[in-house]
């Protein structure tokens, strides 16, 4: 068996804040194989975005990460900036949630794209422009020549996100990490971008971070479910969707509106609030909201166990 493209082991992320230390990611293990499309799912505050940021050393300056992240067998967690900069933008590319603020507002689109290639390749100016135009065509931006000279605020939200994707694709990365790539967009645009991601799967390995199970359903082959900084369940998409084992995953799935959903009935909700990262409960973090919780859940933190389909739960719920 070949080594995975990305291997993340016992990842912890802490933030020093005025209210004390916040443990945002609390021991996360997962791996991504070449050709995979992995979805990391969770509510806001579950640590999914911070996991992604930590992988590439993009945490805010009050954040500290520990553990191990290996990309193509090389340790990259907390690696020196020079080493990370050889990977970032070229081998691993990233797409952010809000393309308006993620693009530099006072720089023309063309320049923002060209500087990636200038940094990572020895291409001539002309070759760079040609490649940028090529990628703008790939992401289906209308009139790429005009857009090239524009500033981000002159584009629509969907076009901006396409520019972000183009920026990520420029160096033909081995791995694409997308952090809520559709959340900030209108619904119709969301669908378009999502369709585009499906076509991207042939080009590269993708990790997509989202709170929306619908996004995962049509796109991914593996799912990682996070809650309160930990992975609670992970496995192949069919198994997670058809046979969810963790009560949290079940609750999440139940909360997704289905075509056969009766609009007169209330949408099922998960009662209670996710715990504050400063005050995690003892034992399983989900226990306070879990309908099935027993005494053991409130005492002992469950390990993530299993082979293909892993879960972190003491209980064996009936299907």
């Amino acid at each position, binding site marked *: 068996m070949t080594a995975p493209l990305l291997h993340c082991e016992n990842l912890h*992320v802490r*933030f020093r*804040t*005025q*209210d004390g230390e*916040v443990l*945002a990611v609390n021991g996360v293990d997962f791996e991504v194989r070449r050709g995979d499309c992995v979805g990391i799912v969770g509510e*806001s*505050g579950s640590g999914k*975005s*911070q996991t992604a940021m930590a992988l590439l050393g993009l*945490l*805010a300056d*009050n*954040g500290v990460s520990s553990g191990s992240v290996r990309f193509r067998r090389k340790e990259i967690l907390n690696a020196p900036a020079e080493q990370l900069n050889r990977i970032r933008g070229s081998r691993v590319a990233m797409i952010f949630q809000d393309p308006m*603020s993620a693009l530099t507002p006072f720089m023309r689109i063309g320049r923002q794209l060209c500087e990636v290639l200038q940094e990572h390749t020895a291409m001539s100016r002309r070759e760079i422009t040609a490649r940028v135009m090529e990628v703008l065509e790939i992401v289906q931006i209308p009139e790429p020549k005009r857009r090239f000279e524009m500033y981000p605020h002159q584009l629509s939200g969907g076009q901006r996100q396409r520019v972000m994707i183009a920026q990520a694709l420029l160096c033909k990365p081995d791995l694409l990490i997308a952090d809520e790539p559709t959340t900030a967009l209108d619904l119709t645009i969301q669908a378009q971008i999502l369709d585009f991601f499906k076509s991207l799967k042939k080009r590269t390995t993708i990790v997509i971070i989202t709170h929306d199970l619908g996004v995962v359903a049509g796109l991914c082959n593996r799912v990682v479910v996070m809650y309160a900084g930990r992975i609670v369940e992970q496995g192949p998409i069919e198994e997670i969707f058809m046979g969810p084992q963790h009560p949290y995953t079940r609750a999440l799935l139940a909360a997704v509106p289905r075509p056969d959903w009766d609009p007169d009935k209330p949408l099922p909700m998960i009662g209670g609030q*996710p715990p*504050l*990262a*400063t005050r995690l409960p003892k034992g399983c973090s989900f226990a306070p909201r879990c309908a099935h919780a027993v005494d053991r859940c409130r005492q002992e933190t469950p390990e993530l166990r299993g082979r293909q389909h892993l879960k972190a739960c003491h209980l064996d719920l009936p299907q």
Partner: protein
Amino acid sequence: MSGPAAMGYRGGDGDAVGELQGRSLWNDAVARFRRHRAAMASLWVLGVITVLAVLVPEFWPNSLDEVNWDYIQSPPTTENLLWFGTDVNGRDMFSRTFYGARISLTIGVLTTLVALIVGVLYGAIAGYRGGPAGDIMMRVVDVLYSLPTLFFIIILVTIFGNNFLLIFICIGAVEWLTLARIVRGQTLSIKEKEYVESARAAGLSTPTILLKYIIPNAIGPVIVYVTLLIPINIIVESYLSFLGLGVQEPFTSWGRLISQGANEIGTAPWLLVIPAAFLVVTLFCFNFIGDGLRDSLDPKEHTR
């Protein structure tokens, strides 16, 4: 300063702020202010200067305009209680410094009071009125704002003569602009609140609504700005006195003492250094108190 963009990228995407405590906001603010060491120390220092400014001119054996013929321009000495030395006319600098403190602090506070009344009323009316009238009122503020206020004060002082009372009316009449802006901004947001709507629905008159509902709720930022305006006005008065346009003999203020000290800088540096030190310490104290108040009244701001 820290906008939402800045907050978004600061770690922990969950809001780790605890639930609201049952304690009142006011108690919280007082507790936070007490923890602000620089502000508490400043409060003490200012208190001491104020007490001395009240007592020294009344009870100190050497009066401020009495000439000591044996001690013309004497450096600080323990003899005859001339702790701060004497000036070119042999007058006791200890007494003069605290008399200057009395004038400078009084003008600082009174001018701020004038500015407070004008600025708060103007801003509240402009904000509550809104519409074209409010816009015109704020355009006037903008135009005045773009000009150096000190020149206005100099013109006013030139025209109306340098009478103690007129000086602070002039300063106050010019320094209300920022207050008007602050209060207008607050008023614009407060007037949309339910309790103002209901007061209006209950048929209360506009002045009543302004005085009872709008102004009391806009007071937090105003208090902070007032503590910053007092030192500004002390500087303005000192500036005028320094140029000879402010307080006239036999009265004195810190600005006037500094001006006289600057003239004797080669022969009697203490005449400059002592009043300058008191002025600077006072300015710092007000700034620290302002910082402390801002941190304690609005903890969300100023996280850096």
